[in-house]
């Protein structure tokens, strides 16, 4: 009977360890989060989101404060991005949201720049000011185009 109880204990520990491993994979590595009390949810419309993906970080002054929850095409044919932010944040209504790139070619994220208004954004509000993703190819293209035009004028 003694050995049977030891075996029960070992099997129980094995099952617990396995469940803990599954939980670690799901919660920590998989990023599955308990959607309990909703965070601050803001909506921002962009002309172009570039390579922005769901779960991309949202940062204020470089500090991560939330993530991109969904990206859909809005009725006005602009990209409608929903942000899931820390509920303790008090952002003024003139906060600017812009899509930035980590380094030159890194992953894209959303940078929020708080403004100076007294009023505070509530959950479900829409950001009034946004800056779209910078399209590097377009930028280079326009520079080359300008340079050619400049050459042409000189001749």
């Amino acid at each position, binding site marked *: 009977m003694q050995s049977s109880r030891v075996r029960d204990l*070992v099997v129980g520990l*094995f099952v617990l360890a396995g469940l803990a491993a599954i939980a670690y994979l799901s919660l920590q590595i998989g990023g599955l989060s308990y959607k309990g009390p909703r965070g601050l949810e803001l909506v921002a419309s962009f002309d172009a989101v570039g390579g922005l993906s769901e*779960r991309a970080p949202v940062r204020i002054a470089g500090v991560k404060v939330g993530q991109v929850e969904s990206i859909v095409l809005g009725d006005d044919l602009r990209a409608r991005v929903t942000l899931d932010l820390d509920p303790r944040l008090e952002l003024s209504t003139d906060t600017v949201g812009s899509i930035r790139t980590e380094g030159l070619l890194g992953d894209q994220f959303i940078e929020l720049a708080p403004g100076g208004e007294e009023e505070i954004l509530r959950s479900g509000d829409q950001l009034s000011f946004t800056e779209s993703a910078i399209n590097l190819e377009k930028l280079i293209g326009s520079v080359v185009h300008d340079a050619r035009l400049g050459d042409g004028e000189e001749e």
Partner: protein
Amino acid sequence: MASELDDVAGLVQGEEPPALPHRALVRLGALVEALGARAQRLVLELGRMARFGAAIVLAAVRPPWRVRRLVFEVFDTGVLSLAIVGASGLTVGMVLALQGYNTLVRFGAEQSLGAVVGLSLIRELGPVLTGLLVTGRAGSAMAAQIGMMVSTEQIDGMRTLAVDPIHYVVMPKALAMSLAMPLLSALFIVAAVFGGYLVGVKLLGVDGGIYLTSLENAVEFGDDVLGSLLKACVFGLLVGLVATYRGYTTARSSQGVSASTTSTVVTASVCILVADYVITALWGV
């Protein structure tokens, strides 16, 4: 059948020397016939296996619940496989990190090491390697044990005592395999991620935070982790079914036991690899 056809060929040959194409045709006919017989046997076997699986499922939902037997079997398949699964996971993770680093560093992308190690482990290597290891470690033993009970007429003895051998012997084994596989696969992946961390961060000097961040950013719960668990569950069911079926249908001889053990490992391994492809193709995991 084949020998009969040979006789016919011989008869024809005895009467008059036949044209060469005719003999070739008879040979071809025999070949096609043999193929047909094999195909029929395969279908028959699959049908029997499906019926056997249905019998296990029926036994599993019928009381008594056989909790003691189940715990015993989980100990045999799960706990005793833990050492080999953990050790393999650790070394696989270490090798992946080493190989991945050597390739990534050429493109200056060694920050993505965590993503490479994590994605390949969670999507493919974790469930598949665990499945193959557990097949070799526990599936073969399962088939051999049931096979031995069949060939020493213990199973018949149980029937005489009005104990359903599928309910008492087979069902707890198959169930234990299905339960242990996802747990072992998750432990394998965690051990491998740790092994990759050891080599990548401690040995090769990738930043620890960057390793884990790239891992966490690359892996999605819905796409990767859920798919990985689905694969492990399917593999567990397959291995449990194949091992118990092969054991239960063992020929009553020592040769029969060895044959059923071998065919368990071969069949279950092939099943795992084919199922892996099908799941990946269907769900894009």
